[in-house]
């Protein structure tokens, strides 16, 4: 029996379990419900994963942009490279700085994304032993640049190629790439793709989709019935639990809570004074920011990039080619993939439309040092928002996974000052 091949997953399990226990015991009913539900969901899935790993199931590392549910065509343990870095950066007292530093000392450039740097450092430290890693060739330079490190460490790398631009030919090409990649992955781990199993897990995701849309619709209400931290938790649930019944349950239960709040015109935290849209990521190294904004500033985060991009349903009733085509479409419309595999025009149009639909007062753009693919958009977006809907946008330069780049104090000060100008 193989053991200890996914030690960071044990770290995730321990920290998420203690977080859940803490919030369940301390917080009264109605307080940060998304954290309670999300922690439970992730804990259960990670626990199952560790059991499987201990039984000898292959550990497949995957990019967050390669849908976790697709890997259920194998009997394996999917481990999200980026999710592991950032969930631990949120849960551990000093985040995963030790592993960032290990990689930096090994030569990984300081400006390259910490979402990969953390897990790379853990691999270098022999905490992970992946059987294979799969990543699409997107969404960013960090992906093309950092993943070859795993190959250097003798981990087989499978690379479904993803084209630029959303066209029929792109979905056809990427669909075939996913198929070839899964077949190649199967050869590496000595398994054949089990399509019935794959369909079952995709169908679970298909059931999640309308719930996500309902939640998005509820956020149009003033005050917003969804607490800020939900956005971060939902991102965690997506990368750790997609394709599972636990994720479905998370959305079903949280939707009921949000509906109840909506019905009672109940708000979370302080009186909602500012409605903000974060068109890019939240800050992962300190999720207490979300609560601080809710409770101290009265600023709602209506959604971030992981909570307004929803993919389409996958038709599992027809032939495999149709399913792969739909899988490609889902992949290319996944958060961050959608924006990175297209020009900025639809992104800007969407932002303007969302500002109108959700009565946003402002945008907050977290300009993450790793994300060069978004490095040219802030000013264009700022000008478009000013001209079209007359609302301002704050840009904060930071590393969303490392407090040492821009400290939480600086971030809070900026947000506070910005909020004061709005009120």
């Amino acid at each position, binding site marked *: 029996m193989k053991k200890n091949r996914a030690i960071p997953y044990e770290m995730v399990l321990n920290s998420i379990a203690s977080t859940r226990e803490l919030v369940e015991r301390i917080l009264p009913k109605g307080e940060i419900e998304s954290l309670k539900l999300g922690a439970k969901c992730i804990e259960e899935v990670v626990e199952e994963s560790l059991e499987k790993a201990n039984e000898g199931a292959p550990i497949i590392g995957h990019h967050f942009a390669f849908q976790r549910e697709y890997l259920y065509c194998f009997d394996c343990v999917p481990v999200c490279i980026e999710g592991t870095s950032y969930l631990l950066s949120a849960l551990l007292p000093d985040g995963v700085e030790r592993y960032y530093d290990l990689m930096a000392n*090994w*030569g*990984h*450039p300081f*400006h*390259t*994304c910490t979402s990969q740097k953390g897990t790379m450092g853990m691999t270098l430290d022999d905490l992970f032993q992946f059987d294979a890693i799969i990543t699409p*060739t*997107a969404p*960013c*330079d*960090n*992906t*093309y*640049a*950092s*993943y*070859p*490190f795993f*190959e*250097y460490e003798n981990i087989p*790398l499978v*690379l479904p*190629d*993803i*084209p*630029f*631009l959303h066209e029929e*030919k*792109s979905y056809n*090409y990427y669909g*075939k*790439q996913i198929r*070839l990649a899964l077949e190649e992955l199967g050869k590496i781990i000595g398994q054949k793709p089990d399509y019935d199993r794959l369909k079952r897990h995709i169908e679970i995701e298909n059931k999640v989709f309308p719930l996500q849309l309902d939640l998005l619709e509820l956020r149009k209400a003033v005050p917003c019935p969804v607490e800020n931290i939900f956005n971060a938790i939902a991102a965690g649930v997506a990368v750790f639990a997609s394709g599972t019944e636990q994720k479905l349950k998370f959305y079903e239960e949280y939707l009921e809570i949000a509906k109840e709040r909506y019905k009672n015109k109940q708000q979370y935290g302080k009186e909602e004074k500012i409605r903000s849209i974060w068109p890019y990521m939240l800050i992962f190294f300190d999720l207490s920011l979300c609560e601080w904004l809710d409770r101290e500033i009265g600023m709602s985060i209506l959604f971030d990039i992981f909570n307004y991009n929803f993919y389409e349903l996958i038709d599992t009733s027809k032939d495999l080619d149709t399913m792969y085509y739909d899988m490609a479409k889902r992949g290319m419309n996944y958060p961050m993939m959608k924006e990175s595999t297209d*020009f*900025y*025009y639809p992104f800007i149009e969407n932002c303007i439309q969302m500002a109108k639909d959700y009565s946003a007062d402002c945008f907050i753009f977290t*300009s993450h*040092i*790793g*994300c*060069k*693919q978004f*490095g*040219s*958009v*802030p*000013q*264009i977006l700022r000008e478009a928002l000013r001209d079209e809907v007359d609302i301002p946008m704050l*840009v904060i*330069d930071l590393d969303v996974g490392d407090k040492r780049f821009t400290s939480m104090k600086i971030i809070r000060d900026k947000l506070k000052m910005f909020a004061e100008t709005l009120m």
Partner: protein
Amino acid sequence: MNLQQDNFLKIADTITNPYLNKTHKKIAGYYCTYIPEELLDAADLYPYRIRATGNENTDLADTYMVRFTCSFVRSSLNLALEGVFDFLDGLFICNSCDHSRRMFELYDMVVFKREGFTKQVPRFYISLPHIISEEGFQWLCNEISELKDKMEKAFNISITNEKLNTSIELYNQNRKLLRNIYNLRLLEHPKLTGTEALRISIANNSVPKEIANKELERLLNYLKERDPIDIDDKKRVLLLGSIVDNMEFTELIEDSGAIIISDNICFGNRTIVDDVKVENNKNPLERITERLYYRLSCPRMMDDHPRRLEFVNQEIERGKIDGVLLQRINNCDLHGCDNMLFEHELKKLNIPVYNFDRENFQADTTRLTTRLQAFIEMID
């Protein structure tokens, strides 16, 4: 003859040049070596590689690109915003890296929308695969074929196979001439420095190839007869990494006790070691695509590091290299990580390596000189 004073090579020091003013052709600007230049030439366009040589100011561009973006791209955008590239009649962009691919939108939404700028500049985009595979090759063949159709429509022209074959010949000849010049650097007693080679390559990329080829022939004949350079006290280095469009940078290296014998950079070997095949039966556009796709890659090709390493090892042997300089423009993740792997791989082979970052314009020269001198002194 001092090559720096050569009239043709002076072109390398400036963004514009007399040929741009004289030409009757439409000028097609492009950023990346993955743009099929032969196709542009066959369309009777003047292919012009956008660069930022000598520019130190990025004030205007900094408004539109965050500080984590590459200073080469920011610098070129600054020039564009100043109107320096207003002579362009077409713009060709591909998804080579995250920094340069977004120039498509920035030129469209900002540069070409400047007050007083009324010219309609057609823009073209190619989606390149990030891995090397048969499916990827087919994808790129379709992309290049579609590009041809779009160009024909935009410029109201017809790009025939005959024209493509003529351009292939012209470009193969150009690469051969440059290779012959570059080979004179590999000699035990080189005939030219790395800075001179870079100057020739940049000038070559700034003018139509029928003009460049005549100039390269002249320079090749001159260099063959030239006395070898005295390099007794210099270490022979191989230069790898990000784009270098600035001779001050290579001068700094060569003034620190080294001579650049070979390279794998954009204005260098990366564009000249592979030719378009002429002997097979495939149509010319497919052969152009074949070269483009399978040529010596840059790190944007995600699965091709082993082949790049093979080239590095080959050049180390061919050039009797004493040490390898791995440089990247700050914030370039692609070269940063590729260099990281090279550093480990070359150290295993006991090859002295120095891995550093820099800005596109020459800044912080004293510190960099000291570090380079220290590295060069450490080489046995």
